[in-house]
């Protein structure tokens, strides 16, 4: 088995050891899902049965997929690389024969896979039954959705990774992390779909990479965006993937030169 697959498998197994934590995640995400479903249904009802292109059924699908993906595509920050910079362990990481970014990317794939199977799937199944929304039947929706989700995870990882790379310049990371969390939870469309945003806020969101992490993949997998409309969405996701990929490589290039190993 190649080293990449081993990284995925190792992280997958690591995540699966915390079974109680997974169960807790399913439970809590489920409760929040019920609260959020009520909120969005009330908003749709208050707007006369349709708001921002959502009706009762699509609103529920949006919440359901959102809660299911929360484990795999996290909305909060992530600081494993930054904390290794702080402790100086990053020196060892950089000396490894595998590129730092590739290493963490593959580990993240393992993490996401376990989180999706352990947390996401139970929520999707339970939620579809409790809230009575059948899964999409069109294979094209599944195909576009799967592609959108993989790209969404990639953009999300690169966003989190870029955040961590800031630690090459400063060890005072807390502010950046809080800022990231605040911005991400709003602009990804996780708290409220960006289709409901007032014009100015929607424009800001659309010019950021954040909807590509979450709103767009959910639009695809829930069958809100279909037909030829799928193509520009995938295009936007690919474009952000490229931008962030180049951005993180440039950051790595200059960051590793700037890096001071603490207590070395």
């Amino acid at each position, binding site marked *: 088995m190649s080293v990449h697959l081993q990284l995925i498998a190792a992280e997958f197994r690591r995540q699966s050891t*915390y079974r*109680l*934590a997974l*169960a*807790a*995640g399913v*439970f*809590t995400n489920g*409760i*929040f899902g*019920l*609260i959020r*479903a*009520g*909120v969005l*249904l*009330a*908003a749709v009802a*208050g*707007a*006369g049965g349709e*708001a*921002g292109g959502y009706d009762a059924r699509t609103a529920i699908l949006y919440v359901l997929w959102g809660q299911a993906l929360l484990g795999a595509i996290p909305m909060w920050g992530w600081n494993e690389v930054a904390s290794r910079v702080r402790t100086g362990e990053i020196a060892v990481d950089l000396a490894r024969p595998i590129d730092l970014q590739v290493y963490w990317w593959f580990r993240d794939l393992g993490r996401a896979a376990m989180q999706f199977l352990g947390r996401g799937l139970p929520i999707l199944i339970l939620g579809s039954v409790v809230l009575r929304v059948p899964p999409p039947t069109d294979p094209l929706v599944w195909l576009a959705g799967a592609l959108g989700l993989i790209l969404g995870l990639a953009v999300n990882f690169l966003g989190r990774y870029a955040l961590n790379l800031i630690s090459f310049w400063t060890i*005072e990371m*807390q*502010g950046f992390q*809080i*800022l990231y*969390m*605040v911005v991400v*939870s*709003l602009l990804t469309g996780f*708290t*409220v779909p960006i289709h*409901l*945003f*007032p014009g100015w*806020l929607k424009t800001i969101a659309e010019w950021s990479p954040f909807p590509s992490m979450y709103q767009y993949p959910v639009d695809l997998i829930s069958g809100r965006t279909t037909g030829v409309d799928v193509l520009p969405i995938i295009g936007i996701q690919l474009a952000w993937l490229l931008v962030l990929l180049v951005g993180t490589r440039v950051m790595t290039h200059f960051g590793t030169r700037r890096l001071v190993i603490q207590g070395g």
Partner: protein
Amino acid sequence: MARLRSQMVYRTSFVLNVIGTFFTGLIEFVEIYVLLATAPIFGGLTLPEASLVFALSSVSFGLADMVFGQMDSLPSFIKQGQLESFLTKPLRLVPQMITSTVQLRRLARVLLGVITFAIAVPHAGIAWSPVMVGVVVGALVFGTTIFSALFVLAGGCQFWLINGTEFTNAFVYGGKYVSQLPGPVLLTPIRVFFTFVVPATVTTYLPVLILLDKPGPALLPQVLGWGAPLFAVWAWVLALVVWRAGVRKYTGAGG
């Protein structure tokens, strides 16, 4: 006091934390704002009215979070063996834990609530009287009491959960979320659970109904708001029973 001063020593970190806490709360408000930009009425309330619910929730939850907010990090106390050192001292456990972890930065959320309240109140058309002032004060006092009880309850549950901390987020942070919302938007099971088991709606949505003299939806009649003291007692009974049972069950982490 020394604990509080120590939080101010790392000034940039403290300031960033305060700003972060403030903006996290603000984003939660933006959610309500965006939903009310789509429709004029959300759960029977207008924007200023719904803002009052949010404001009461922010102040009460912020105060409770400041004092009791670290109770659900009990697993890390246990893992570090700090719980043993608390237990050996001739003081009660809960006061020791809270004095070691009071988080001043949470005042940012209280401030957000106060600002929201001040902006929303002139637009809400409340017929002020001494009784109504009492309703607001009561909502904040009993609200803080109830949210504090939820943190202690969560802490008590941790004795059984250790690696399943997230379970308690369902009612602590779920409760916070519910308390920011107008009652009618809640699906029935959520409405029942977060009123009669975990009384989160009682000190936010219900007092606003009293202030506005509105009737309220099924299972959440306005009159229930006057029962806030009873709900507060219930929350603490529940919290202390679970906490005591947890402490008694605790046998050490082999430290």
